[in-house]
């Protein structure tokens, strides 16, 4: 077990190292280093921040300039990454990129965790029920609409939801993270306002992810229900609910958890665009604004932070997996 955790930890660091190396290498492989170009452009635009920007350029040149050998630039870069120092925001100088990102990260993490957990739990249960012969018949008719919903990318479903529930029927707010009259603090009214603003973005992820979870679970459940131990459990006269929960559901659940770990990256990427649609104050919106301003340090920083978070989550799921399935041991043969 310890060997497995260590190996899995190795993979985690490998991913983070590779991602930061890509971030380092790409601008330097381009014919014209876009970061340097953008910084020089910021200086030439002048204005009040001119002298500040000149300081940034001087700092950047000292660390990553052509007079520095490549390996030294690389070590400098890696050292910065290890301390989560992504540099300064070019568009919102003198704010540091990490400060801007940390402002959005709690929003994104909270919103994403809740949305993924709800869609996973609901979808899995629904899929199990659809395959269960003694469940109500009407559940069968859910398959087609669920399939249709899962064919829509999250953010496009989000657009439709805003139009219906916010623009036309005015049940939920049009966008943003909380009412502007609220102060961002831990008060009841602020939390209520934040939750109200998160319903539609979360719903767009839940509705469209529900289908794939349900269909995956249905397939696994059909296979599991054909197993001999289910027949035996029924023959023993166990209650239907007990066979369903303890014999069928539990065994069919395991591959679902593997796909949960595999899908985290896709979900995170999709939610970035969902945030843009809703103007939700998370890292997705920060990324969008940074792209419009060619704010390179913030862009690379957001990407690194999301990759870091997702890698940590998949690491956790993989390490906790043996607890759910005692048959699996990660000892090397």
């Amino acid at each position: 077990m310890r060997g497995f955790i260590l190996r899995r930890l190795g993979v985690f660091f490998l991913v983070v190292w590779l991602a930061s190396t890509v971030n380092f290498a790409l601008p330097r492989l381009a014919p014209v280093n876009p970061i340097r170009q953008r910084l020089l452009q910021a200086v030439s635009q002048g204005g009040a921040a001119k002298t500040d920007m000149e300081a940034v350029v001087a700092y950047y040149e000292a660390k990553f300039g052509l007079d520095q050998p490549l390996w030294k630039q690389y070590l400098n870069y890696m050292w910065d990454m290890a301390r989560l120092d992504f540099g300064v925001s070019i568009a919102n100088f003198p704010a540091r990129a990490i400060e801007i990102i940390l402002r959005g990260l709690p929003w994104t993490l909270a919103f994403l965790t809740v949305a993924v957990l709800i869609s996973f739990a609901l979808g899995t249960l629904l899929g199990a029920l659809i395959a269960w012969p003694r469940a109500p018949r009407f559940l069968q008719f859910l398959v087609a609409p669920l399939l249709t919903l899962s064919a829509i990318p999250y953010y496009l479903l989000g657009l439709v939801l805003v139009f219906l529930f916010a623009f036309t029927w005015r049940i939920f707010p049009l966008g943003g993270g909380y009412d502007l009259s609220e102060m961002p603090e831990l008060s009841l009214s602020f939390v209520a306002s934040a939750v109200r603003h998160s319903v539609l973005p979360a719903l767009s992820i839940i509705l469209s992810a529900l289908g794939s979870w349900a269909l995956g679970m249905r397939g696994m459940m059909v296979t599991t229900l054909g197993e001999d131990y289910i027949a035996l459990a029924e023959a023993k006269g166990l209650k239907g609910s007990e066979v369903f929960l303890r014999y069928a559901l539990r065994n069919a659940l395991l591959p679902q958890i593997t796909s949960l770990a595999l899908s985290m990256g896709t979900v995170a990427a999709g939610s970035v665009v969902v945030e843009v649609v809703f103007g939700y104050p998370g890292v997705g919106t920060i990324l969008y604004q940074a792209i419009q301003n060619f704010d390179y340090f913030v862009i690379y920083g957001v990407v690194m932070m999301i990759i870091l978070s997702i890698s940590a989550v998949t690491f956790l799921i993989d390490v906790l997996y043996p607890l759910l399935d005692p048959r699996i041991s990660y000892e090397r043969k």
Partner: protein
Amino acid sequence: MAAWLAGAISPLRRNPQLVTGLVIILILVIMGPVGMLLVDPKGAKVGTAIPDLPPSAEYPLGTDTHGRNLLPVMLLGTPQTIKIGLLSGAIGLGVGIILGFVAGYVGGVVDNIIKGAADVLLTVPGLLLLVVIAITVKGTVTVNMMAVVVSILAWMWPTRTIRSQVLTLREREFVRMAKLGGMKGPEIIVQELVPNLLPYLASSFVGAVASGILASIGLEALGLGPQNEPTLGMTIFWALRYTAVLRGLWWWWGPPIVIIVLTFMGLFLISAGLDQIANPRLRRLT
């Protein structure tokens, strides 16, 4: 000839999913060139119509804030978006075939590296890596460049599927017979393995096309697409940029969403149909 045709059609008749999917995609692809005969493609350019008009007899899908006639924009954009998908799917499948066969056939360290790389990349939020690439190679992006950028992350599923299939096929009797018969590695791959894998290859291709389209629309919605060419994703980007939803301009973002959903449903049906050919046991489930 008639008998041959009947032979080719009869598996299709037993596979309504595949047929429906193919018909949907075909209609979407043909729609553009056929529609161009009836509608002036110049209307897709900025400033050729009065802005923000709802659908009418003159502008069946209305116009956007830039003064584009949205009907020709859709007719021109749909094939472009599908083209991005097909190109990136082809590249992804090509790379997947090579890596999958090498990994499955050579095995050992090579297999570990290829499988490890695919697994690791699958868990990374791909769209974000593409954002980093697209923002770094900025400048005028073309539809073909989009396809290449998107294909960078389209090879993992094909590689995994093909690798695992090669692993099981490798041990089968007919492959052993071919070896005994004196066939060389590449010959065995081309003559014995590939024909058996065709349904899997087709299904991986469809999957890669879908993920390519999805990634390209995501990139475009973030503003990293071809600014000068009408695609479905760019239409979504402009609609978001000019807050079309809050201004009630549903005809701006509605049609691209409908077309995108139809595209994904068509691709999904095709791949489900192909899965049934590849794995007859699935028929029991549906």
